[in-house]
């Protein structure tokens, strides 16, 4: 769809967003529902005219805003009155100071878990979808769609209903039952594709070029430049919740890699706006060994990512051909971080470790970040004397099958039986 507009007068009102810019070659395009550069196929991202002026005044404006991502509306591609529209209003989730986990891992510089299981559909996806909903409204789409490893399908289904849009979402046929129910319950169409996530994604890319998909807003295809920006809010919140301070180290899960690149973008914006002190930070990427194309490329010193066929319990991270992989490699190397992976048993151990130390039940992706944090400390790569933030991007209730936990004992309802079980005292 051609969009005619100049940068000074965008055809749609999306706050400080002024244009789309190719991350590869720098070519600029008017704001519209396009996602790949017409010159080089590179990913398009939002170019902004961000607020200038007194950082303290901006801080006060943000702090006086709603307790959700719209407090950062001046930094996002959304209309100024976004908070008045029907939306799931995600974000401002807890940043948990994880002292018991820190003690177990030997972290002395302060360890925090950014717990995004507290979002409306229990994963960070509500952040990105909320931005995509505003783009869909701006471009006049009436159906919201996506390719999904599960969490996104539920987030799109819920957000579409709240916004009064239709939805049709596509998932691999072998997802965890909890995620399938969560995607289906909102009443939109849910289509299971016989294949893995990369097959689903390819299908959606073809659908969008066909008249069948005309008029559809695919949050992670033709609305991807807008959608991805939602992950910047994780960076904003972490810094605000630390008292407008950058953490020293962040451990972030990698599926396509978009979230990690947008968190880096958000941190850089906060520095440029003068909202935080300019100091170095390190970004670490976390993958499951059974789907570790970015970790493999990092360790091999490669600049490109060789696709893999995923086989891991961390299905929300099971993207074998990650679109933003090369940029993750750039960021990990630029900041002095790393990309590491852990096995499925290590993921389960880490889920249980986080649960028993902090009372946080993470989905498998959270097991990946906690597991990788532990491994990076053991290997001397992550400095335990520095302030470290680990992301948990989803709720353990979505991946119950991964964790074989049950009762300590099953007894008759009498005190003798309890005493006999050896659990008293």
């Amino acid at each position, binding site marked *: 769809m051609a969009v005619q507009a100049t940068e000074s007068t965008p055809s749609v009102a999306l706050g400080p967003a002024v244009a789309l810019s190719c991350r590869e070659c720098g070519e600029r395009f008017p704001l519209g529902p396009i996602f790949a550069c*017409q010159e080089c196929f590179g990913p398009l991202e939002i170019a902004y005219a961000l607020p200038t002026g007194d950082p303290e005044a901006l801080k006060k404006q943000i702090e006086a805003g709603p307790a959700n991502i719209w407090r950062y509306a001046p930094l996002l591609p959304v209309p100024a009155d976004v908070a008045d529209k029907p939306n799931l209003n995600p974000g401002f989730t807890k940043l948990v100071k994880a002292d018991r986990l820190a003690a177990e891992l030997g972290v002395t510089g302060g360890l925090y878990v950014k717990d995004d299981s507290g979002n409306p559909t229990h994963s960070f996806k509500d952040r990105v979808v909320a931005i995509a909903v505003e783009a869909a409204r701006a471009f006049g789409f009436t159906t919201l769609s996506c390719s999904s490893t599960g969490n*996104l399908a539920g987030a799109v289904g819920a957000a579409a209903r709240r916004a009064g849009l239709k939805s049709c979402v596509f998932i691999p046929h072998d997802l965890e039952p909890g995620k399938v129910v969560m995607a289906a319950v909102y009443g939109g169409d849910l289509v299971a594709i016989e294949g893995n996530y*990369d097959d689903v994604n390819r299908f959606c890319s073809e659908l969008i070029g066909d008249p069948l998909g005309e008029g559809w807003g695919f949050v992670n295809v033709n609305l991807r430049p807008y959608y991805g920006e939602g992950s910047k809010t994780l960076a904003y919140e972490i810094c605000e919740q630390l008292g407008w301070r950058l953490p020293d180290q962040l451990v972030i899960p990698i599926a*396509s890699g978009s979230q990690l690149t947008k968190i880096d973008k958000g941190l850089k914006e906060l520095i440029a706006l003068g909202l935080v002190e300019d100091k170095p930070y390190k970004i670490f990427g976390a993958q499951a060994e059974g789907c570790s194309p970015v970790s493999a490329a990092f360790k091999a010193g490669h600049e490109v990512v060789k696709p893999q066929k995923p086989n891991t319990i961390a299905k929300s991270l099971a993207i074998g051909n990650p679109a933003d992989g090369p940029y993750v490699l750039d960021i990990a190397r630029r900041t002095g971080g790393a990309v590491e992976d852990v096995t499925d048993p290590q993921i389960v151990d880490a889920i249980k470790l986080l649960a028993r130390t902090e009372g946080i039940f993470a989905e498998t992706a959270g097991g990946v970040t906690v597991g990788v944090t532990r491994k990076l400390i053991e290997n001397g790569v992550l400095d335990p004397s520095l302030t470290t933030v680990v992301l948990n991007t989803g709720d353990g209730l979505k991946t119950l099958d991964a964790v074989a936990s049950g009762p300590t004992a099953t007894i008759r309802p009498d005190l003798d039986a309890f005493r006999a079980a050896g659990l008293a005292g």
Partner: protein
Amino acid sequence: MSVNVRIPTILRTYTGGEAEVTAEGATLSEVIADLEKNHQGIAARVLDDAGKLRRFVNVYVNDDDVRFEQGLQTPTPEGAGISIIPAVAGGC
């Protein structure tokens, strides 16, 4: 060998708006050269200056990602379906 090539939206300016075109060639490399003959300019969009597939282009021959096969030397049998797709879609 005659094959069918699905053209992504952003390349349809080169094919007069056609979403699918036919091309000749026994390998992907030959097919792209033949596309260029009939739709001038299209090869430079798909290949970089060194003649390699651009890093944000995925190409499938009969449902197989050519990066898992033999890249530009992947055979393209008679009647094969080839899809050119922007790689930046998906995930988060």
